[in-house]
């Protein structure tokens, strides 16, 4: 004990306060520019980039779409997206397992968003850290591919609890894997009763138009 004795200071403050402040700045920027933003989260390899490509192939007016790719290393995903003729930026997070909102904010400030109506942010592939950090998005989208197993909502409840949309991907592979779609639906609803669930295959195109319609309807509401 020091000479002045031990004193308790009440703090009652979120540990994520600085991230929440940066996310609030992003939200204000998106609101001012009337941009609808999605934060895409999933395990590595469940098809985030492929889903974005499938959306871009179907969306009208690609000039209105901007994409931010998050990965620990490489520009591989940004190069894939660039081929679709949309504005794209890559964030390499190095030691961080998720996109930091402060980093996204500075990238968005560098981009020309004058024509942008829809922003797709692909987070770093994992189901733990990106779930903890808000990016000021309008909707958080968690992807779960049928090859990953139907117990994921139970193992990673936070991401399913905090996501507005659940997109079950690679449904064309359902005949070849043991994956109980109803089990996933039940678990996801228990985590978030108002979650919207979509089943898609980017390969066959099944379910893609329903997902795009949903995104475009919400995007129109923000304009």
């Amino acid at each position, binding site marked *: 004990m*020091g000479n002045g004795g*031990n004193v308790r*200071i009440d703090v*009652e403050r979120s*540990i994520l306060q600085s991230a929440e402040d940066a996310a609030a700045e992003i939200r204000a920027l998106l609101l001012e520019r009337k941009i609808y933003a999605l934060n895409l989260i999933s395990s590595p390899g469940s098809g985030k980039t492929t889903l974005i490509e499938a959306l871009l192939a179907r969306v009208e007016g690609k000039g209105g779409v901007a994409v931010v790719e998050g990965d620990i290393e490489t520009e591989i995903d940004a190069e894939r997206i660039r081929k679709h003729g949309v504005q794209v930026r890559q964030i390499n997070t190095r*030691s961080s397992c998720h996109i930091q909102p402060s980093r996204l904010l500075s990238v968005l400030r560098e981009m020309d968003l004058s024509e942008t109506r829809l922003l797709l942010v692909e987070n770093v592939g994992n189901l733990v*850290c990106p779930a*903890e950090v808000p990016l000021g998005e309008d909707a958080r989208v968690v992807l779960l591919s049928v090859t990953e197993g139907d117990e994921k909502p139970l193992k990673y409840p936070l991401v399913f609890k905090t996501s507005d949309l659940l997109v079950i991907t690679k449904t064309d592979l359902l005949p070849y894997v043991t994956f109980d779609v109803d089990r996933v639906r039940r*678990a996801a609803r*228990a985590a978030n009763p108002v979650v919207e669930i979509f089943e898609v295959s980017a390969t066959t195109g099944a379910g893609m138009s329903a997902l795009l319609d949903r995104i475009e309807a919400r995007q129109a509401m923000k304009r």
Partner: protein
Amino acid sequence: MHELGVANEILDIALSEAGRHAAKKVTSIRLRVGVLRAIESGNLSFLFEHLARGTPAEGAHLEIVEEPVRVECDACGVSEAASFLLECPRCKGSGVSVTGGDSLSILSLDVDA
């Protein structure tokens, strides 16, 4: 390793609060951590200890108050659980909604004034 970012934020907040109160040393930090946060307390303490070296929070003890999830069952009301679940821990019914368990906050600091 997602505890690293959390440990960094805890240290930043603790040092700024200690500075504001002109405290010499931070001896203990109380946290509320929801069970859904997947924070491994040993890992968090290890990383915090490392980051706090050479600062007024060196050697501070992290005291973690765990926040359970709240389970609302259609049949038998509210109970608590230490992890996410799909059925009521009491009646095993499936009509449940799970809330809470996602806190991540600093409650208080103990400092030497």
